[in-house]
Structure formats: C-alpha cells, structure tokens
C-alpha cells in the first residue's frame, strides 16, 4: 500500500489517467501540488502566460486528440482567469478537467487572500464540479472528473482543491480506481431501435433530403459512419461551423457550411428540404435564422446524445437519443437490411433524388463559393479569402487550423476545405476572441509533426498575444496567419450594414504594433505581406520553416465583408445577402 500526500495524489492520478500535458500557472494555493509535480510527476507541464490561455490550450489539445485537456490553476484570480476558457469548452462540449487551488478549508468563506468561490462562479458553465473535502477522496474524485468530462455529452469538470488537503505532511493510502460507477449518471449507449426504424422509413421515402451534421459527429467519432451513410443514400450533407470536417469537404455530396454565413446551396437545400436528418447538431440560432420560418416543409429526425438538445428550439418529429456512432451504425444496418429485403421499392427514390441533385447543382453553379470566386478579384488588394485559399494550397488541405473569432474565422470556415474531423478548431458556441493562438499551441504539442496554423485577426490575436512567449519557451512552431485589416472586421461589417458605417470603437487608427518586430522580440520569425503577388511565396516560406513559429502579417482589403450573410431579423434560412448590393 502506497502512502501519498494530497499533492502527490494529484500528480500520480494525472499519470495514472494517462495525461499527456498539464497546462497551468502556479500560485499560493497550488504550491504543494506544484512541488509534487516538480519532485515526481512524469506528465510535462506547460507554463502559460495567462490562465485563460491554459484553458484554451487544453481545449485545443482536447479538440484535436479527443482526449480531455488538463488545466491547473491557483485560487482567486487564477481561477477567475480560467473562466472564459471553461465557458468556451462548455459551449462546444469539449472534455476538460480543471484543477483549481482553493484557500485552506478553515479559511473558506472568510474572504481570505485570493479566495473566490470557484465552484459557485463556474457552476453554470461546467458539466460538473467538486469542492474536495478530504484528502483521501482526491483519487476517486479525479477519476470521476475524467470520466464525466469524456463520456456522454462531454464538457469541462472543475475540481477545487483547498490548500490544506494537498500539504506534504499528511499522507493517506493511494488507490486509483479502475472504474467509475455513479447511480445518478448513466449516459445512453445506443439509440432506440424502434425510433431508428421510424427514422429510416422517413429517410428512405424522402424526395428532398438533407443531412445536417454538427460538432457532435466529431466529438462522437462518427465521421466515418456519417460518410458511409451519406454515400449509401447519395444524400447531400451540410456541416455546421462546429461540424466542419465531419464529412469530407471535397466530396461531391458536400454542400458546404450552413447558417448565418453558410453556403447558398446549403441554406437553400435546407429551406426546401422535405426530410432533415440532424445529427449531433443543436439548431443553434446561428443556423436556423428565424425559428418560425425554419424549413417549412421539412420533417425532422434529430439524433443527439443529450436529450435536452432535442426539441429545444425546433421540434423534432423523430427524436433519437444516443451516441452518434452507435445510432449511425444501426441506421446503416437497418437501411441495408431493408434494401436487401425490399429491393428498389425500399427507396431512396432515385428519380426524386436525381431531380434534387439537379436543383442543388444549379444553386451551386449560380452562387456557390467554390464554383467561382464570388468576391471581387480585380481590386489589386489582397482579399482575405485569397489568404485562406493560399493557406489551403500551401498545406495541401491537411493542416490543423485554429481560429479566433470574427471575419477571419468565417473566411477560414468557408475557404479551407476540411476533409478530416478534428482539423478545424474554433470557438463556435461562445465565440471567444483570443482562443486561436493558445489552442494552436495545444494542438501542436499533441501533433508536433503536423502543420498547425492559427488564422486570426489583429483584434483577436492581441487578446492572448502573450502566449508567443510560451511558444518560445517550449519551441512550438505554429504558423500565425494574421488577416490584418486595421478594424474589428466583423463589428465593422455589422456597423456597415446596420449602423450606416458609424465605426463606433472598431478602428485601431495607428495603434497597432509592428507584428513582425513583435514576433521577433519573442524570438520568432515575422513576415509582412502587403502585395498579392508575394502571398503564396510568403505562405510557402512560413511552412518551409518547420522549426520556427512564423507570424505572417497579411494586409488585406480593409473593407471586405463576409458573404453570404443571412438576413435577420425575420429572415428564413434562404434569405441572404450575397454581396454588399445583392440579396436573394
């Protein structure tokens, strides 16, 4: 029997859990834990420059690998700084375990130095949380935390550790539990067969079907089965912002992203559909536009691991609660069985589907973003879309791409054709500026041999730019692609469209730093690009410098807008601006 202190238990439990990286920042309440890490822990610790970045880095790691990200922060400001990152992970259902220090048990509630009620302040943005009361509970609680974070609908779990419980003197028996059993938590392991049967009947009888798949397909590792199902049926697929990569973008059956800045053909197909198979998606307001006008003739099959996501905003005709991969597998089995027993009568109706594809191809040819440039190529300026296309070529479409939030995020989502899941890493639900750089760090640490690019803007990048220092300390050679237009671009776009171009606080004037010099100050490489003819060469150079973090500062057209853009309020899915002057 092994006797360990609380601090040692934390270190050992992380080893036993197979954790690859701890992203953290020390401070008073976690000093015992940090000392235990120093003395014995085999798990490498990445010292970030701000706790928010620790959570985003762990989040990026989790999105790319599928394994929970791990964060260690101190009490008070350490904990509150982590909140934005926890909320980001919660909104996108990312598995994460956050260990926070707390003031000693006897001081809790006394407004002690660096005290904050972490369990209270994080309560609405965690899947679950623990305030540890006894040292001997630490191993079981950490085991439960990882189990909860990664199973069912994943999410962040906070474990708050009062300092006295981790002191090096008091030692207790350490046993890391093999399994977890909780009477109050039993995530569904499969979908209801009867519901799946009804869904198949509806699906096979569809004349204008669309498969609408979201981040849940990526989280649930359902991409291969989704692709198999779509090909089996020859049905069109659209992905949400969170779902990009779940279905190969370069495949003929892919309609592009849907929603607010979704593709013309995707939004039109949704609006005109008669059957929607929604899988791992949650009918977010950035997808549906006005709910009362959403897809008027569609019957909806909704597959989700979380019952609370079903019929939350749009009522499902056939709800199926279960993990996407198990449900998709059974769907495929049932479809094949039906088609074997009933032959061509089983469906799909090939003639109707053929007509549907003719219609979709016409939408695609007239307004699709990938069938012809829909932006002005004659300005002589660098268009932000062209930067993403250049990035796509330079990385052969196979990079991990993180992004911040704003126009650059939408351009990346529209123009980088993700063929694989877990390659597109962005804050979809919370929309957190400052996410991209630390997230890219987490991804690159997990996959050091792969290309990792952070597509960002001069606004977002400054929200966590201090992490250039972390990248320097741990040699994390990511590529930062900064779409620099001197404005908070998406804010400016809305001000252009809705506020008569009154640029209230969205202009930087001459205050922007020289990003090339800034990158160099941190020991990295900076490249400025302000001529279109230099773009591809600079992009290639950035990725040729394998061992260097390269900051590519690209001066793009300052006045470009993201299109299509759904018309709100009161618009349906297919009501869109297609350019500054043209609308549907």
């Amino acid at each position, binding site marked *: 029997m092994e006797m360990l202190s609380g601090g040692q238990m934390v270190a050992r439990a992380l080893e036993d859990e197979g954790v690859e990286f701890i992203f953290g920042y020390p401070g008073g309440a976690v000093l015992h834990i940090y000392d235990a890490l120093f003395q014995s822990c085999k798990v490498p610790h990445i010292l970030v420059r701000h706790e928010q970045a620790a959570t985003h880095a762990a989040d990026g790691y989790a999105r790319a690998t599928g394994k929970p990200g791990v964060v260690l922060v101190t009490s008070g400001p350490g904990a509150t700084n982590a909140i934005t990152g926890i909320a980001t992970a919660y909104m996108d259902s990312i598995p994460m375990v956050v260990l926070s220090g707390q003031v000693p048990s006897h001081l809790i509630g006394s407004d002690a130095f660096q005290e904050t009620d972490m*369990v*209270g302040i994080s*309560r*609405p943005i965690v*899947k*679950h*949380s623990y*305030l540890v*009361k006894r040292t001997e509970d630490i191993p079981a609680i950490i085991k439960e935390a990882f189990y*909860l974070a990664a199973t069912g609908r994943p999410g962040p779990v906070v474990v708050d550790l009062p300092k006295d419980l981790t002191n090096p003197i008091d030692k207790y028996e350490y046993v890391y539990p093999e399994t977890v059993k*909780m*009477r*109050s*938590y039993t995530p569904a392991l499969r979908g209801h067969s009867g519901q799946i049967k009804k869904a198949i009947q509806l699906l096979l009888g569809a004349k204008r079907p669309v498969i609408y798949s979201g981040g849940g397909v990526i989280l649930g590792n359902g991409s291969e089965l989704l692709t198999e199902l779509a090909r089996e049926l020859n049905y069109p697929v659209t992905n949400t912002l969170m779902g990009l990569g779940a279905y190969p973008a370069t495949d003929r059956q892919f309609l592009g992203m849907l929603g607010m800045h979704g593709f013309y053909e995707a939004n039109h197909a949704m609006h005109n559909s008669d059957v929607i198979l929604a899988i791992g998606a949650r009918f977010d307001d950035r997808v549906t536009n006005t709910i009362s006008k959403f897809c008027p003739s569609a019957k909806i099959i909704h597959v989700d691991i*979380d*019952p*609370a996501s079903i*019929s*939350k905003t749009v*009522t499902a005709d056939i709800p199926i609660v279960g993990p996407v991969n198990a449900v998709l597998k059974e769907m495929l089995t049932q479809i094949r069985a039906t088609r074997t027993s009933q032959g061509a009568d089983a469906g799909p109706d090939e003639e109707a589907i053929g007509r549907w594809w003719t219609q979709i191809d016409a939408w695609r040819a007239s307004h699709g973003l990938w069938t012809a440039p829909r932006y002005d190529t004659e300005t002589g300026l660098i268009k932000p879309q062209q930067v993403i296309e250049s990035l796509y070529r330079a990385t052969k479409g196979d990079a991990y791409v993180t992004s911040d939030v704003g126009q650059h995020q939408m351009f990346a989502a529209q123009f980088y054709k993700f063929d694989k899941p877990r390659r597109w890493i962005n804050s979809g639900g919370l929309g957190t500026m400052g996410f991209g750089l630390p997230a890219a760090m987490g991804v690159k640490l997990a996959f050091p041999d792969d290309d990792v690019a952070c597509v960002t803007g001069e606004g977002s990048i400054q929200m966590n730019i201090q992490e250039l220092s972390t990248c320097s300390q741990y040699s994390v050679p990511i590529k930062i692609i900064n779409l620099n237009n001197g404005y908070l671009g998406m804010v400016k776009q809305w001000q252009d469209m809705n506020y008569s171009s009154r640029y209230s606080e969205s202009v930087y004037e001459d205050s922007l730093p020289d990003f090339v010099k800034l990158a160099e100050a941190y020991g990295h490489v900076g490249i400025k690009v302000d001529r279109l003819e230099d773009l591809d060469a600079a992009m290639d150079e950035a990725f040729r410098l394998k061992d260097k973090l390269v900051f590519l500062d690209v001066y793009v057209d300052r006045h470009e807008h993201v299109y299509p853009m759904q018309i709100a309020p009161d618009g349906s899915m297919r009501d869109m601006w297609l350019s500054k002057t043209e609308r549907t």
Partner: protein
Amino acid sequence: MRHIISVLLENEPGALSRVVGLFSQRGYNIESLNVAPTEDATLSRLTLTTEGDDQKIEQITKHLNRLIEVVKLVDLTEGAHIERELMMLKVRATGAQRAEIKRCTDIFRGQIIDVGPNVYTIQVAGAADKLDAFIESIGDAAILEVVRSGVSGIARGEKVLTL
C-alpha cells in the same frame, strides 16, 4: 399550467444550488421549493412547483435530469397525486374574534398550536389552494405572519419515486 416536480437528489453540499441555479440561468421560475433528506441519508427529496407550457416543462425536466446529482425525478402533475403544504399563521385574536377564528380553523381542519392573550398561532395543512382559501377567510386584517413550507407531493396508488 402549474406543475409539481419531485426530485431525488444526492444529499451532497452544492447539489441544491445547482438545481436553483439551473432555474435562474435558463429563465425558469420556481414558485415554491422544499427539500429534506429521505429515509436513505444519502438522498434528498426536493419538490418544486413551476409554471409553463408542455415544451417548457419538458425542457425543465430534461435539464434537471442532466444535473449529475439528480438521481431521478417525476412530474407529479402528469398522474394522480396528493399534494400537501403546511402553513403556520399568527393572527390577532381578541374579543369575539377569538371564537370566530377558532370556528374557521375547525372548518379547515386546522389546529391552534399556540395561544397568547391577543394572538393565536394556527397550523393548517392541505393543498396550496386550500391554504389560500384559509388565508382569505381569516382576512388580511387579522393576519400578523404567514409561514408556508412549500408544496410536497406523492403519487397515488402503487407508483413510487425511489432508487
């Protein structure tokens, strides 16, 4: 419509705050709430009443079920059930009023549980609307203080909410 939702909850610190937090976070109302441990000390039974259409109540029960510490729950209003609430009132009782209040209390099958020279303390149990009716019959003028426990409920017949 008014619903009575009864929840078996892990009897752990912080569990109640998650339930209450859920309601404020998602903009739902709690009209009454009561909670106490059950015969199994590891479990609490929480009963709350709330208003909403079917879709809203469905969301409330789904979100409650999502809380890790919620073991089981039932919407009692979906079936035959018994609802009770305990109320204690302190009322001014002087002169002829004393006999009148005593009669009224008897009619509502309440009990006078404390007597002072100028006040009665009355206990009444029943469904929430019966307690409302009692308050009305006593009249605002006489009432000095009202304490209500919040609604508790249990299903009729053999249906039980248990592990």
